[in-house]
């Protein structure tokens, strides 16, 4: 067969790539607002994004004001988008760009090329696997991420091992505990490089008391051993001591990275902190007509926050569709260590404030009631103490009141802690 690469061409008003909470929410709003052709694509066989395989409850608090399981939450957003009139297509992958707002698609019905007036990237985020974390040792089976674990257990009813060690002690790590226990595995330890766990005390105590799982703090994974199947892991404490733990399963949780492949292949600049596309409070990237929403922008927030992004992004997308000129915020907001990232990370002084009037941040260390300083060109725009401890892997917020004081043509804005 001679290879052919012919594509059918189409145009739509809005092309949303990714049918997770963020993509579905923006599509629902836009279709409800009367946009004619809103098409949402997802490369998985089923829409819904990550919540599809999070079988525990707790989804929907902030966007729907009630809580439900992940699959129910996914179904809610799918139904809302379809009801509003968005076209939802699954099993189709956006593979690249033919022009700035023209996307190439592969699906079982063939190759397509879709041109849109607005493209919304909603491709989500993933956990860094063992290799990306450079954990040395052999390459046995039984080493996975929470995303893979949840799909194995909840979507495919596959067996997992008997004795598991979890790397991470944040929210998603506890989801991994639940999933492992449901699959009949014993969790023999949770390991974190932090001095404490990073979840809400109630959640963590629940896990500890209910299941008696030891938490190993200030420790990293020094080596995996085992041929064929994982046999044990060596943990190294900050003080240099090491200990071997026998286990046949290891779940690497958290350590997020946005799925930024499409954004990057469009040449859209990434933010050095989030590693997602740099975007302003209106979810605009530097590429005209290309928006980004959800955990692609901020790895990671809970699903309801991703869905709220989608909701908030609808108005700026509508403005773009009516032909308002593309003038995204171009002034970078940067954080300095020990801060990890801030979102939004581009601002337009005098432009729109971030959703809910605040910036979202992450820290790499516990900071007890830290003082945050916002500086531009040596000039302090804001200085204030946070009311509580900033915890790694959990959001904390900075009010956006200082935004008006930033000079539009000044240098980058820096956020530091002392």
């Amino acid at each position, binding site marked *: 067969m001679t290879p052919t690469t012919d594509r059918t061409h189409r145009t739509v008003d809005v092309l949303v790539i990714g049918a997770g909470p963020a993509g579905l929410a923006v599509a629902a709003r836009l279709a409800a607002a009367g946009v004619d052709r809103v098409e949402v694509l997802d490369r998985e066989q089923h829409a819904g994004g990550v919540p599809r395989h999070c079988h525990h409850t707790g989804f929907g608090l902030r966007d729907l004001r009630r809580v439900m399981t992940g699959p129910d939450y996914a179904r809610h957003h799918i139904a809302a988008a379809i009801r509003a009139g968005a076209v939802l297509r699954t099993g189709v992958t956006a593979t690249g760009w033919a022009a700035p707002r023209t996307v190439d698609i*592969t699906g079982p019905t063939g190759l397509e090329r879709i041109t849109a007036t607005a493209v919304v990237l909603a491709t989500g985020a993933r956990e*860094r696997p063992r290799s990306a974390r450079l954990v040395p040792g052999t390459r046995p089976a039984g080493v996975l991420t929470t995303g893979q674990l949840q799909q194995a257990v909840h979507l495919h009813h596959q067996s997992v091992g008997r004795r598991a060690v979890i790397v991470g002690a944040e929210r998603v790590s506890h989801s991994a505990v639940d999933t492992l226990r449901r699959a009949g595995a014993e969790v023999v330890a949770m390991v974190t490089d932090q001095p404490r766990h990073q979840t809400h005390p109630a959640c963590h105590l629940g896990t500890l008391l209910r299941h008696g799982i030891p938490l190993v703090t200030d420790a990293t994974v020094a080596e995996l051993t085992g041929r064929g199947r994982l046999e044990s892991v060596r943990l190294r404490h900050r003080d240099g001591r090491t200990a071997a733990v026998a286990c046949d399963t290891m779940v690497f949780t958290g350590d997020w*990275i946005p799925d930024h492949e499409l954004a990057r292949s469009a040449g859209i600049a990434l933010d050095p902190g989030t590693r997602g596309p740099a975007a302003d409070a209106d979810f605009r990237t530097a590429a005209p007509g290309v928006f980004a929403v959800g955990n692609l922008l901020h790895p990671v927030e809970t699903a309801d926050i991703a869905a709220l992004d989608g909701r908030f992004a609808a108005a700026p997308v509508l403005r773009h569709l009516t032909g308002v000129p593309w003038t995204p915020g171009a002034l970078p907001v940067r954080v300095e260590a020990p801060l990890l990232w801030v979102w939004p990370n581009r601002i337009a002084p005098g432009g729109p404030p971030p959703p809910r009037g605040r910036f979202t941040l992450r820290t790499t260390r516990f900071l007890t009631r830290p003082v945050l300083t916002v500086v531009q060109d040596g000039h302090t725009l804001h200085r204030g103490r946070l009311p509580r401890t900033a915890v790694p892997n959990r959001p904390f917020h900075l009010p956006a009141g200082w935004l008006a004081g930033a000079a539009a043509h000044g240098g980058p804005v820096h956020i530091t802690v002392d």
Partner: protein
Amino acid sequence: MTVTTTGDLPDEVHDVAIVGAGVVGTAIARELARYRLRIALVEASDDVGNGTSKANTAILHTGFDATPGTLEARLVREGYQRLIAYAAETGIPLEPLGALLVAWDGEQLAALPALAEKAARNGYDETSVLDADAVYAREPHLGPGALGALEVPGESIICPWTTTLAYATQAVRAGVDLHLNCPAGAITTGGDHHEIATPRGVLRTRHLVNAAGLYSDEINRRLGHEEFTVTPRRGQLIVFDKFARGLVDRILLPVPTALGKGVLVAPTVYGNVMLGPTAEDLDDKTATGSSADGLASLREKGERILPELLAEEVTAVYAGLRAATEHGDYQIHADPGRRYVAVGGIRSTGLTASMAIAAHVVELLTDCGLDPGPEREIEPVRMPTIGEAFPRPYQRADLIAADPAYGTVVCHCERVTRGEIRDALTATVPPASLDGIRRRTRALGGRCQGFFCGAEVRAQFEAATAAQDRTAQDRTEARR
């Protein structure tokens, strides 16, 4: 067409048995399959190419820097030509990118002309010495401080997995019996044939080829030979995300000096960039793990060569063991009295030389009394396109129109479709594990390492395995 993974070995006397189904053993099997012979290829592991052949730097060497006059120099040179032709015929991914040996200090710069001369003595005349400007014009992302380079335009990158698999597939289709999960144990050599003990029964063969890689010295001793001892030399490698591919166009080789060998940076045919290998002499032939020190030293060296590389995500880390010996050359010896050929010490060029080694071994076998009879045409094979140089199935309207399974992407990072995974699962030499699927299709080999598709690929693998078990059962019952 026979590939067995369990059960008793056939009760017959083979013309030739080959121990070890790495790139060398499978190449030999394929070369012998061109004659009407009863051939068995026995492999200890559950797949072909599961030893050193799966974990190397995947470069097809011109042989420009071999030691002139050695057997290795000749076989690498010949193997290079043969494999280029074979890759074109079978679809093994290969890209002739060329290499630069970059000099970072005066000593290395001074060594370049001698390397060019050595290349010429190896029959390779196409090298040229470049000044710093020419080097940066070719590789603008190179770190600062490069003083010059030797350009070797013929150096190429190749897919080591498809190479081994193509040999094995063609050999099996031409009648070779491949027995997996079949470690060769004690060997009794009689006047007429060898008896090789395996957990699956005794294998009888008139001629024996030892292509056991790291264990070739041990098999050699079982036949009373002591020509060489294998010392594993570990090479750790880091594979970077595809976004790094834009940083480098050629293979960046180190200049060998008295102070030792540096590391290389090379694109892969899958569109990644690799950094490595280390060189550590060990005594454990199973030590294929990576170490914190090894990875740290690679990163430090990589930072100098291509600083931006280090900012990219790491997709994979692995280590391979070179079968180094106390000798400076391949250890290929024939013992006509025992109708035996040892193929040992195939250290760091065996992928390149594989086809030439195979041709050489067939000659040695005839010296040992093997009468291969007339040559015959064997069915050509066409391997799946897993390299980036040609359109992959997900990019092909024609394939998807004929079979929509090629339009359903399962592994998103590597864009591997359901159709390709299905094909691999039903191929002549099917995978025995998820790693086997990865080496055949690239599924699970990407940046997420299974976050998105790990469970789905496993489900497809388990379904196929269950279906095969059912057919096997049905067959047994039918026989009853």
